[in-house]
């Protein structure tokens, strides 16, 4: 009896899996994005949505947004702000796949476009701009002092992968300078790139000015003129499927306000 049953018992779930997959294939992408999020968004909204705000922000905004988060919490007692910092490209993918978020602040218009193309964000606003800088370890072992030095094969350079905003900007800047740089590694976000310099594993890296300032003392920053040709505009938008849309708008307003601007400019961003 068991032997006869077992053959079906094994085939059935495999068939079930295939059928479930095929039926999911039938619905279009927007449909699946919606069906993927009900579990997540209902959980978020049931957890008192008016007192929790979720912000997805580019890794380079870690310090500034954490500070603005504290300001927001102080101004709105009872509200808890949770941040998800990471590579803008990864965050954009997470949002389009249904991750529950109220606000998205990206490090490039291209990554924000991923979200707006999926009709998941209202009109984004550029709130700051970021410039690249060369980061070297404090003792500067390879004696790097200008962009040209990065093209030297003896210098170990870390760049961001081109899929992420700082990588795209690095390529633009290097193209503007007419340089060919072969990095030893293409990191998945700007903070990982910065860490390689802090650990002394590479001689130089192209990261944002803000990252160099945030790692004060652990790395030294070197400006270069071509950085002006590859400035990244940072857009921010509240998301259409936000569990807490009112709080989302308030947070965006804070970021765009003079107070928000001051915090960001102090960290090394350029005003938009």
């Amino acid at each position, binding site marked *: 009896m068991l032997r006869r049953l077992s053959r079906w018992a094994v085939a059935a*779930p495999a068939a079930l899996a295939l059928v479930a997959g095929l039926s999911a*294939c039938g619905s279009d992408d927007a449909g699946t994005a919606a069906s993927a999020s009900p579990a997540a968004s209902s959980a978020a909204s049931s957890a008192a949505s008016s007192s929790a705000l979720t912000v997805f922000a580019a890794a380079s905004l870690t310090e500034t947004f954490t500070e603005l988060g504290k300001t927001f919490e102080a101004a709105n007692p009872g509200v808890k702000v949770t941040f998800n910092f990471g590579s803008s490209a990864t965050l954009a993918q997470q949002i389009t796949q249904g991750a529950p978020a109220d606000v998205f602040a990206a490090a490039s218009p291209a990554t924000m476009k991923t979200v707006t193309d999926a009709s998941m964000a209202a009109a984004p606003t550029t709130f700051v701009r970021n410039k690249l800088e060369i980061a070297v370890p404090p003792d500067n072992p390879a004696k790097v002092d200008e962009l040209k030095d990065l093209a030297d094969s003896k210098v170990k350079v870390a760049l961001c992968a081109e899929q992420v905003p700082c990588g795209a900007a690095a390529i633009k800047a290097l193209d503007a300078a007419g340089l060919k740089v072969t990095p030893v590694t293409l990191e998945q976000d700007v903070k990982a790139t910065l860490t390689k310099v802090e650990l002394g594993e590479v001689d130089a890296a192209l990261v944002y000015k803000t990252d160099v300032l945030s790692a004060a003392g652990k790395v030294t920053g070197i400006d270069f003129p071509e950085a002006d040709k590859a400035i990244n505009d940072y857009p921010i938008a509240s998301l259409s499927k936000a569990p807490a849309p009112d709080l989302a708008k308030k947070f965006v307003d804070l970021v765009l306000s003079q107070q928000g601007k001051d915090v960001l400019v102090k960290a090394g961003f350029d005003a938009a």
Partner: protein
Amino acid sequence: MVLAVAGMTFLVLPLAGLLVRAPWSTMPERLAEPQVLEALRLSLVTATIATAVCLVLGVPLAWLLARVPFPGRRLVRALVTIPLVLPPVVGGVALLLVLGRRGLVGQWLESTFGFSLPFTTAGVVVAEAFVAMPFLVISVEGALRAADLRYEEAAATLGASRWIVFRRVTMPLIAPGIVAGAVLCWARALGEFGATITFAGNFPGRTQTMPLAVYLALETEPDAAIVLSLLLLVVSVAILAGLRDRWVTSA
């Protein structure tokens, strides 16, 4: 029975998802892209070399833990399982702190040989071997403890030297355990991501293994990521299925 079936469904469902959502129409062009085959080749080569390293270092270690009573043996056994418990990225950071350019040992490597492991293919092998070795050690140690000592003793009383005993009695007895451990080790090494990207970095052709390629592709082109994932899955399943009989049979 129901639980077993549920368990199987749980494991099989993601595979079904991959198969169903794969961009079958554009698959041929995507597979032909040089970066895809490079990542696959690198993954297979490094996983195999890492398994070889694990075998060379792991089997003697397993022998030590199973057969040689020494003070602190239990501690050493616990330490061997650390890479299993450590999150892979943490493992990568730890490797950097020791074998990196400014690391405890790496500093000496750099100054004596001018060679540093991070950002090299050798670094990928080191990272993969680090996370995969416990699988082999635990499997072989288990097999050694289960092996009947009387065969070895009988061989010894018949005049066989220790090396002959090891080679012709012990090894065949624990061979299934070694193979099982090696297969697990290989599979773990193939799928390694966190330690590899942290310690060896990411560069196509040199350190960009399949898991890294999938992660980066996912950032901008989910379809490409699906194709890469499917390819890795098919290759792994083919190889593991080929060893199926040996793997499932225990000592």
